[in-house]
Each structure stands twice: as structure tokens, then as C-alpha cells.
């Protein structure tokens, strides 16, 4: 019985311990794709970039190596590469009306333009939606608190083996929050209130990021350096 109890006690963390968790920044990945702004009316422009994570490196914000309209195909010409950036230009109201008819949308509904983007020699791919026919803005990061203090731009210094609280003012029923790090172990990383602990075997330095998404394809992020001592 004792052996089984020990086996049981160790089985749970063993199940989830050997794969990179979703909060790990130290991983080659697309963390979030951003359209600025995420919703545009006829004639307006939106530019596309993304926050990338890199194994053994720092995060970066980069323009896609490649981008292409996935849907609807009739609006593929709204995406162009202009002055080093991928840009979506909302078409005329007539074309938007035609697109709504094609997609069986209501007359006043925004047209979702789904764009595929690729990075790292197309080994990392993602999709991003830009709302056409409606003006939208990316959400603000409100009242971000790190270790009980308002977040600034400076490095976060934390103690090892200390639970460091992190919070952002966001309703988790309306917003998708993700806290990520390459220094420490994140707990409740997908809740507005999370905490990070730098364990003994964690790296002493890295980055901490928060990504906020709303239900209208808006996204915002911020990245801080983090150091444990």
C-alpha cells in the first residue's frame, strides 16, 4: 500500500512535468499576432506584427516573413506588403457588402478577414482576424501590478523561492489573459491574478510577459526583464 501511495503521489506531477508549459517564453513560438488597429472601416489601414518567443533568446516583435489572406478569398487583394510592413486596407463599402453576402453575414456585421502569417522560414504559422467595416482598437493594459507594485518599464527583481503576485485589471470572462515567463514557474498563468515563483533550479534571469486578448480580436502585450536573487 505504501508503495502504491508513493506512486500515486508522484504520478500527478510526472504527468505534466516534462512538456514545455504554455507559459514558457523560452520556446520557439508565436505568442500573439497583433493587428493595429484590429478593426477598420473602408479605406483605413491596419498593420500586422507579432510577439515571438525564442528558445534560449529574448522575445521580439517582428513583421511576418510571409502573410496571405485565408478567408474570404475575394478580399485577398486587401493585404499588401508596404514599406517593410504587412498592411490590410479595408475595401469599399460595396465590396464589403458583397463579402457579407458571400459569408452570409448580416448587413451591418463586420467582415472577418482571416490572415495567415508565417515566421522562422514558415515553421511557425498563425492566423489573425481583422474586422473590416468596423473601427476597433486593441485593449489597454489596465492596472498591471507586479509584486504588489504598479508595473513600470524597469526590470522586475524578485527573490528566489518567493511567491510573487501578478495581476491585471481584466474580467476573465471577457478577456483572455496569459502571463508568460522564461525565469521561474508560473501559477494560474491564465487568470488575471497569477503568481510566479523562481525555484532553485530555474534560470536566474529572463523575461516576464503579459498578453491580453479581447473578444473582438484585439490584443495587447508588455514584456519586462526579470531577475531573481
Amino acid at each position, binding site marked *: 500500500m505504501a508503495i502504491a501511495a508513493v506512486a*500515486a503521489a508522484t504520478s500527478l506531477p510526472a504527468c505534466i512535468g516534462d512538456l514545455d508549459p504554455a507559459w514558457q517564453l523560452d520556446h520557439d513560438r508565436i505568442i500573439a499576432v497583433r493587428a493595429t488597429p484590429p478593426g477598420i472601416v473602408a479605406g483605413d489601414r491596419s498593420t500586422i506584427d507579432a510577439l515571438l518567443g525564442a528558445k534560449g533568446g529574448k522575445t521580439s516583435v517582428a513583421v511576418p516573413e510571409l502573410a496571405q489572406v485565408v478567408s474570404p478569398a475575394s478580399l485577398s487583394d486587401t493585404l499588401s506588403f508596404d514599406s517593410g510592413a504587412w498592411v490590410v486596407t479595408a475595401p469599399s463599402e460595396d465590396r464589403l457588402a458583397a463579402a457579407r453576402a458571400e459569408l452570409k453575414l448580416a448587413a451591418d456585421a463586420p467582415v472577418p478577414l482571416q490572415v495567415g502569417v508565417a515566421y522562422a522560414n514558415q515553421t511557425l504559422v498563425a492566423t489573425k482576424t481583422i474586422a473590416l467595416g468596423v473601427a476597433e482598437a486593441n485593449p489597454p493594459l489596465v492596472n498591471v501590478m507586479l509584486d504588489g507594485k504598479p508595473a513600470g518599464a524597469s526590470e522586475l527583481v524578485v527573490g528566489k523561492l518567493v511567491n510573487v503576485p501578478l495581476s491585471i485589471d481584466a474580467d476573465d470572462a471577457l478577456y483572455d489573459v496569459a502571463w508568460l515567463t522564461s525565469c521561474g514557474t508560473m501559477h494560474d498563468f491564465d487568470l488575471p491574478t497569477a503568481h510566479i515563483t523562481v525555484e532553485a533550479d530555474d534560470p536566474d534571469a529572463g523575461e516576464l510577459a503579459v498578453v491580453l486578448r479581447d473578444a473582438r480580436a484585439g490584443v495587447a502585450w508588455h514584456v519586462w526583464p526579470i531577475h531573481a536573487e
Partner: protein
Amino acid sequence: MNAQRTGGDTAMLFRCLTLFAVIVAGAGIAAAQEPPPEAPPPADQPGLPHDLPIATVTGRIIDAAGKPVAGATVGIEDATETVKTDRNGKFQISVPMGSTLVVEKPGFDPALANVSATKLDDVVMLAAGTNTETIEISGEAPAASPGAAVLDRTELQRIPGTGNDVVRALTAMPGVVNLQIPLGYSGVVIRGSSPQDSKVLVDDFEVPVLFHNIGFRALLPAEAVQSLDYIPGGFDVQYGRASSGIVALETRPGADQRTTQGEISLIDGGVLGQGTLGERTKYMIGFRRSTIDLVLPSLIPASADLSLTTVPSYYDGQLRIDHELSAKWRLYLSSLGTNDVFELYATKDEDAKTKRFYNNTRFIRLTLGAQYHEGPWSAKLAVSGLAQQFVFEAGTLQRVDVRLSTMTPRAEITRTAERWAGLSNVVWRIGAEASIGRSTVDIALPLEKREGEPMKAFDPKDTSTRFHGSFWVPDFAGWTALTANLDPQIRATVGLRSDVFARIGEVALEPRGELQIKLPAALTARLSAGAYRRPPEFQSENLTTNAGSEHSAQVIAGLQYEPREGMRVQTSAYATDRSHLLTHNLDGSLNNNGHGTTTGAELLATYRGGPWFTWLSYSYSHSTRVDAPGAERRLFDFDQPHSLNAAVSWKHGRWQLGGRFQLYSGLPITPPVGAVFDSDRNLYLPLYGKVNSERAPMHNQLDIRIDYSWKWGPTEMTVFADVQNVYMNESVVTYFYSYDYTQRQAFKSLPIIPSLGLRGVL
């Protein structure tokens, strides 16, 4: 709320909890073992003719349908002393060679048997009103179909590595797909099809689940089980609504003597009482509650982001009352109920409703039946009610709440005749059943995963399957079958079943038949063929009236060899053609465009004699399907080509020792080949390779079991150690994937599972 984390980790979490529960289940399964019934003692011998040599002879009494006749009186003519048959219809008596045994029981005509050897052929008792007849059927009664097998309670408890559990004992059966850990399934998988294709019956009526949500424990303890009929295919017309196999459990009637027993373990504890109420009434009542909820919180690491607000727990209860109303009528009441519940937060923050998971599964079935027997006529009448509820809630958006109430009256009448229309030993049956169900369903879930569809990314905001309403599910069935000897060596059964699935407006005709040919040298050949239907009732299938039933046609050929009492070797080869399989259209609706085949062969060799109980089973199976016209043929999710079980148990005095070796193929896996990141939903959408194009490696393990029994005052005590996987072979069950599908981790079987148990019977 972050979909990746919730999906990936939650799926993992449930798997880990299941794994964990299996460990704990293995750690503390209490012994529920009863000493095997001793054979009736030899009778005293006054009045025996002393000029003939005395011998101790054994035999068995069965009825015309091949079922054991318990409680029959066996004696020689003109002698005053007799013995009674045990519950398996067996007897042992010391009588002169050459004498004639007289077998009597109310409701049957007396039967005669000549004592010409120490092991007698089975004696068949015909219903009262027909002539006495001794039919030459060597050995045990025939199984329900080629490849079928029966285990009684003591045998269930003697197979090492099963921890006295019915579900685990089933894995020793040929044709049962051995799932090391049943991730997300609650039924038995037979001959490589799907869990929903086979039915589990308790006292002739279907139960919605076979085992509890946690611990891989059967919903009733082995102590409450009289026998287990395993029919992997070719089942009789009395069974329906299944396209693969049947597992029929019979609850235990009370004993003649009042006993009370209790057991406690790390997984659950229970009490069971049985006895008589007056001269004509027997009862059995049992109750069990999980104890895992007392243990589980202390085993969860403090670092785990998990809060078990309602620790996984279950209750189950069993009741059976049998009353001999008269020589012709017997009444019984059977009830079975279970309640499983858990609630957890995938965080320590219990205010985070988006990370809450809740499940409650409960049902109660109550059956009232009557059995009538007079002369050549007999009847089984019963009405059974089932009330069940399944609730699952994930986060704030996804939920399912299904409530189902079903009333099922059922009747079957049997007429026997010694001879009719040139046939002999004729048994004619006719039956009918009506199942009237009312479902109330409230669903907001993602599109369900169907057979062969790889696991989708878990999006907690996906509620693309929505339904809120109530509907009736009326199903009707009628059947008839005629069984008779065409000549002394050939016995045939022809039958027809008709199912009416009224909700979908479908009428099915399912002819079935079987031929048994007695060959020389204790061999019997059997050939069975039939048509079967499974109505659309799995998951969300009955939310629409556009889905039809799934069809199967089965052909089974078998050979049975019984060289001596207690020894049986049976082999069978089968082919199952499946059609009208339910699959998804691109828009998520259902169609019946799938078809498939399963072919295989099985071997089961058993020996029950003296202190020995041995068991050898092997099955080969190949199960493939095509999901749409022109689509590529692929393996079923539960295709398991090889499965071998070899078990031996030896009992001597107070000791019982046993071992079991298992070797079986891993299940197919569909590998992801990449993923696309949906940045708006923060979700990786996996891209999969060919369906079921990989397979987990083969697994083998050795289990051992030691029992020791003794008397402690008036209490019979038994302690046992049941150790699974003694040489600690870890093999891959399946794989877990990282949130972006770039990494995978093997989910391995458990290295060793020791179990200790203790039980007292007063």
C-alpha cells in the same frame, strides 16, 4: 481564460486523475473473497444394494435451455438419503455402479440417469408435463454462443491481477480489448469495435455505465454478482440494441444462511448482508462507498495548481429479494444504484469559475420480476425502471445535463416439448419488450469526438453543439426462437428479432441462428450467424432524428472440446461486417455512411478441478473501417491484434496462490504532424497525419496473488495480496502533447501495483 492551458492541462489532469485513481484502486482493494463452495458431501448410504461396487460419482443437472438446476434432489431409487445440487447444478454422491439416479425438483418432471461411470453426463430436466429424458451432452452446459464464456463469483475472484473486480476480470476474456487505463470510457470494448457497440446488462436490463468514474471499479462489487455471462458476438434474439457483444451480470440471490460481511480499503468500503426472511424469501443487500476521497487530497502535491472542492467519490448500492410464491411462481426484486461526483478547480483559486470542472453521474434501476413454471410452460415477466442523470460542467460556458427516465416492461414465454414436427427436445420462446424513455437534455459543448477522429484542441469557449429540450425515446422489440434437436447429434436454433426505434422511425428485422453439431471425441462444432442493430443513442446521436441505427452482420464458427469434467477448450473464428456506421459530415451533422469489418480468432481453455483453476485465453483481431465513400480504410480506435491471458490459481487448505501473465498489443494512435496557432483564440489547432497510423507498443506483465483464510472467533477472515506487474514493465499507453504539439511525452503504464485486502464474514 487561456484555452491552451486549460485544454492541454485539463485533459492531462483528468488522465492523471484516472491514473492516480487506478493506482489507489490497486493499492487498497479489499478482499471480497468467499471460499469457493464445497461440493455437496457424499450422502450416507443406507439402503444401498450391497452387491454392487460403491463409487463416488459426480454430475450436473441442467434444464432444457442448458442452465444449471440448483436445489434439485438426487438419489438412487428406493434409497432414503439424497443430495442436493449446488448453484451450478453439480452434485456428488456415493452410489453403487449400475444403479439408477432419480433427480427431482418441483416444476420439473423427474429425470433418471444410469450410473455407468464416476463422471456422469449432464442430466437434462424437462419442465413438468413432458417426459423424462436423459440427453447425452458431455461436460458443462454449452456457452451462449461460440466464443462465449461464463464466470461465477468464485471464479471472478480467483483470477490474479483483477483485485476481485468484475471489470478487471473481464479483461481476461478473449475478445475484450485490454485498456490499461480506460481514458474517458465507461464501457467494455469487444472485438475491436467501440464501447457503445456492446451492452452491459444487470438482471436482464441495460445499465448505462459499467464502472465508476474513478478507480476503474465496477459499479457493483463482485460479492453482489452471481455470475457473469460474456457473449462477444452471436448473441441470442432476446438481446438487442447492440452490434457487437453482451456482458450480462446476474446479481446474487440471498443465501440460505444469514451472513454479514464488511470490507474496507483505500478505494472503497462496503457491507453486504444476505439471508432469509421466512421460509420462502431470500435477500441480499449491499452498500459501498468510496474511501478514495479521504486519501486523495493528501496525495496531491502542494505545488499542483489544483483544488479538489468535492473530492472524487462514489456510492453504490445493490438489493435483491427472491420470493418463492408457490411451486409455480417466483418473484424477485432487483435494484442497483450508483452516484459518482467530483468537483475541482484547475487552480488553487476557487473563485476562478472559468477553471471549474464538475461531474455528477448517477442512476438507479429497479426491476420487479416474476418467473412462472408449470409443465411445459415457463415465463419470465418483468418491469424495470431506470432513472439516470449525467451532469458535466467545464468553466462558465460548457455544460451538459442529461436526465433520462425509462420504463421497460418485458416478457418472455417458453414452451418445451419432447417431440414436435419430427424434432426432439424442442424449446420455443417468444418475447417482447417496450422501452419508453423520456430525455431532458441541456447541452452547450464543442462538437463531440467520434470514433477515429483525433483529439481536438480544447477550447473552453466552444459551445458549437447546443440543445435544450425534452423528447421521447420509445423503442419496441419482439422476438421468437425455436431450438430443437434435428437428430441426436445436431441441435439448431433459429430466431428472429424485430426492433422498432420509433424516434427515428426505423424498423429492423434481425434473423439469427445457430447450429451445434456433436462430433466424436468430446468435440462440438458450432456455427452462429445473425444480424444486429445499435440505435443512435451514444453521446449526442439522439439529438437528431436523422441518424439511423448502425448495422452489423456476424458469422462465428467455433469448436469446443471437453475431454473431462471441468476442462473445456473452445476456439472460434469470426467475421463481422459493419455498415451504416455513424460518422460526421463536414458541417458536424451525422450520417450513416461508414462501414467496416472485423475478423479474428479466439481461444479459451479452462480447467476447474480439485485445487486448480487455470485460464488461458488468446485473441487475434483485425478491425478496420471506412468513414465515407471513397475514404481510405483505417483501423478502429480500439483495434488490438493480440491479447493473451494465462492464469493459474491453486488452493490448498487455508492458502490460495495464483499468477497471471498478460501480453497484448497497444492501441492505434493518430500522430499530429504540426499545428497552426489561432492567435485570436490563443489556441493551437493540431494538424494530424493518417488516422491511427501509429500504434503504442505491446505490453506484458505478470500479476500474482496470495490469499490466506482463517477463523477468528465466529468470523471467517481472508487476507490477500494481489500484485500487478511484478517485474515492473512500464510500456507506453499513449502520448501527451505540449500545447503547441511540438513535444510529446509517453504516458506509461504503472510499474507495479500492489494490493492488500482484508475481509471478514460473520
